[in-house]
């Protein structure tokens, strides 16, 4: 082409697209008078008509998309309340740990003490000390008989101390065991209540899931009926795993 008509203008004129009516009229007048543009336009048109001899084909692919479903057994697992069991386990473990952490070992008043749970609020048993009047001044001389008596008093005093200490320890251990039994019984009752609530929730969850599974099965049956003529079924996972196709064995019409 030797004139000032561009290739894009010729194409727009040939397909009558994206061209203003005034521009189209101007081009029409020019083409009628310009042999070069006229011949080019005719060649482009002829090529276009030859190309249109290639008709479309029918693909006969019968593509059908089916969403991948979870296996049935996965539907039976509790999915909405997984924390119940973990919470109950943690609570029981925490109770046991705290229970053991409350054991106290102490040495007071030259005696070995143990306590579980609450600290004992009972004051230690006061041991009566021997009457001070029985203590003889160390400055005065004493006889052999007096020495023996004082030695016997000291031995008796020591026995009383040991006996009092034993009584006190027995009393504290008894009180501690009584309190421990009471606390364990209380915890046992609370744990039974939690377990009962968890079982009730699990039962309700399973009943709901069972109904959902029945509904899904009805839906699947309807879809299989709807796609009865499909020649091929594609199963497309939601993640990036490869898709897979399943030929149904049906002949395409």
């Amino acid at each position, binding site marked *: 082409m030797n004139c000032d008509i561009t290739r894009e203008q010729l*194409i*727009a004129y040939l*397909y009558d*697209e*994206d061209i203003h009516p005034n521009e189209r009229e101007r081009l029409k007048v020019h083409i009628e008078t310009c042999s070069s543009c006229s011949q080019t336009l005719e060649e482009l048109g002829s090529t276009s008509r*030859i*190309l249109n001899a290639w008709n479309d*084909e029918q*693909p006969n692919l019968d593509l059908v998309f089916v969403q991948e479903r979870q296996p049935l057994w996965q539907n039976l697992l509790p999915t909405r309340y997984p924390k119940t069991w973990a919470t109950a386990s943690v609570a029981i473990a925490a109770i046991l740990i705290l229970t053991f952490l409350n054991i106290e070992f102490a040495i007071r008043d030259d005696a070995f003490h143990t306590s579980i749970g609450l600290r004992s609020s009972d004051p230690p048993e006061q041991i009566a000390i021997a009457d001070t009047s029985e203590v003889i001044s160390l400055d005065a001389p004493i006889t052999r008989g007096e020495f023996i008596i004082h030695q016997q008093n000291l031995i008796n005093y020591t026995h009383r101390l040991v006996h009092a200490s034993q009584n006190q320890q027995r009393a504290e251990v008894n009180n501690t065991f009584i309190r421990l039994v009471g606390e364990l019984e209380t915890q046992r009752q609370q744990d039974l209540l939690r377990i009962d609530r968890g079982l009730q929730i699990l039962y309700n969850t399973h009943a709901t899931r069972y109904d959902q599974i029945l509904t899904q099965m009805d839906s699947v049956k309807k879809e299989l009926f709807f796609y009865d003529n499909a020649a091929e079924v594609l199963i497309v996972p939601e993640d990036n795993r490869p898709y897979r196709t399943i030929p149904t064995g049906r002949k395409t019409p």
Partner: protein
Amino acid sequence: MNDAELIAQFRAGQIAAFNTLVKRWECPIYNFVLRYAGNRDDARDLCQQTFIRAYKNMRRLRDPDKFTSWIYQIALNACRDAGRRRSLVSLDTLDTPIADTTTPPDAIVHEQSVRDLLNRALQNLPEEQRVVIIMKEYQGLKFTEIAETLKVPLNTVKSRMYYGLSALKKIFDRWHISEDMVRYEL
């Protein structure tokens, strides 16, 4: 129901809406990839890949009214990816006869010969010109839609169309292909 409504239903969870889209676009997409790739085996695979990619990426389509250019973009990318994996394009498998009992045998042979000749001619074009010609002549897209699909300026599309048709004219002259030859009167 138009494409945008079907897309909305699919996004709401109705996979049957997507299958309706597939039925509607199966033929245009198949013929587009067939003319791009030049053989039926590749065309079947490319068509399937196109719809699988569309299924997986539907949520990325921002404007459902632009579904046409979007699906052709996916198809074209699938063709180009396949072309990169396989540098040669087979030109022979279009000779496989199509089962057709209503047309006389010589007409079938004639149609297959025309189809094969035109396929070979198109495969001789540069890829960018071939894509524009296929989209315009066979898929019926407007120049603006082609420009949107290929993400090139409008004048670039028209320019590629001009050079593509001119190159085909030379090929047709060399192979003695004329309008009379391809026109078959039964």
